[in-house]
């Protein structure tokens, strides 16, 4: 891992990985969406609305996956001052927040035909909503300082504190839910899922993961380029580097 603490080495690797991640993401999402929307059977109970699942469930997986990645990257940036891990955490946060929002919105759209309401205070929905706020807090804290390094360190501590809290919040929300309303919702986990539905689901999950890698690499490279540009500007302003030629 420490081999890639060197940004130059990381950029070289990232440049090589990026087209593959992009191709994999487009391929899997394209095929997954085709299977999900056209060539998979409608559910015997839920009818056509079950197709929302192929967008919703992998998004919820990615919401949690991204938070864990973000916290792990934050921990390694705190422990080893790993510069690229820092960038990875910063690049993961908005993507994870977007997946969380996608899961919430599609869940709400799915809930309307299934449960007859846009929102229920179900334990799962509530904890995903709280996860979304944890992401927003992280992003807000990161941008709250004039010194980006300070923002990165503060946000890293918050991410580690948050990941310890996520299971506690999950547990307490489950408890709260069983206290307030007995399980009354029909859930999906009746019969084992059929392969005609599992294939598009897994394709979408793989596509989302590749999409995440792709977006994270773009964001990290942009961040590194920005740092470089800022350093050059500073050097120009202090007069130690020649100004670039007017063109």
């Amino acid at each position, binding site marked *: 891992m420490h081999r890639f603490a060197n940004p130059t080495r990381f950029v070289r690797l990232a440049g090589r990985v990026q087209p593959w991640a992009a191709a994999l993401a487009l391929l899997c999402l394209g095929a997954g969406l085709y299977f999900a929307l056209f060539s998979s059977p409608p559910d015997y109970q839920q009818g056509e609305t079950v197709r929302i699942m192929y967008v919703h469930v992998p998004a919820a997986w990615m919401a949690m996956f991204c938070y864990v990645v973000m916290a792990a990257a934050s921990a390694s940036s705190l422990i080893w001052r790993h510069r690229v891990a820092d960038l990875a955490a910063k690049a993961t946060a908005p993507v994870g927040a977007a997946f969380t929002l996608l899961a919430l919105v599609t869940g709400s759209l799915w809930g309307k035909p299934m449960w007859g309401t846009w929102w229920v205070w179900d334990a799962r929905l509530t904890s995903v909503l709280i996860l979304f706020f944890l992401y927003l807090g992280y992003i807000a*804290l990161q941008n709250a*300082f004039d010194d980006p390094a300070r923002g990165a360190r503060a946000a890293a501590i918050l991410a580690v504190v948050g990941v310890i809290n996520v299971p506690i919040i999950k547990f307490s929300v489950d408890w709260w839910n069983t206290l307030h309303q007995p399980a009354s919702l029909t859930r999906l986990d009746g019969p084992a899922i059929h392969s005609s539905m599992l294939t598009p689901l897994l394709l979408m999950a793989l596509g989302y993961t590749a999409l995440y890698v792709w977006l994270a690499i773009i964001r990290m490279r942009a961040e590194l380029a920005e740092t470089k540009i800022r350093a050059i500007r500073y050097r120009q302003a202090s007069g130690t580097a020649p100004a670039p030629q007017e063109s």
Partner: protein
Amino acid sequence: MRGFTDTLRRELRLALRQGGDSLLVVMFFVLVVVLFPLGAGPEPGILSRIGAGIIWISALLAAMLSMDRLYQSDFEDGSLELLVLSPAPLEIVVLAKAAAHWLTTGLPLIVASPLLGLLLNLEAEGIGVMLVSLTLGTPALSLVGAIAAALVLGARRGGVLISLLILPLFIPILIFGVGAVDAALLELTYRPQLMVLGALLLLAAALSPWAAAAAVRQAVA
């Protein structure tokens, strides 16, 4: 241990000399509770049903509003840097600061809460359990708040930011605090909720000094 008692004494002395602050927090607490009947209607049935939630949420907000007192003035006049440099371990110092914060804000809230329970038509059994749940829960609020308050030191719009950071972390404490009172009002067993609250407090006491000390270090670095 010296570091703990010395810091605690210093914080309490500062709070006493500046006076008023604790009173303001309690007044805020009472005012928020008073707003709820105005917003939700004065029917005693409704109020006694949601009374525990009202008092807990108001306590959460009052604790959150007073978080800037933990470090802000020390950060501005530079004494926070001296505390970081002092030979006492910073973890102990922030623990003492959180304890002082609880003594000057959490404790007055607990003292004021039975009266508010009466105003909200809460039954005597519920008030007793609410006192216990607040006693277990509010120190945990101070401990968790000690992390977030250090993270936002020197941030733009730190006051609004801290609410975004802190309130999601307060949710478990709120759930079990209100859950214990609700169980008592329904004449169910409330021991499990109180025991989980106690566990949360112990967990916060064990872990949050480390995180808060790390947060203070990065704030003054």
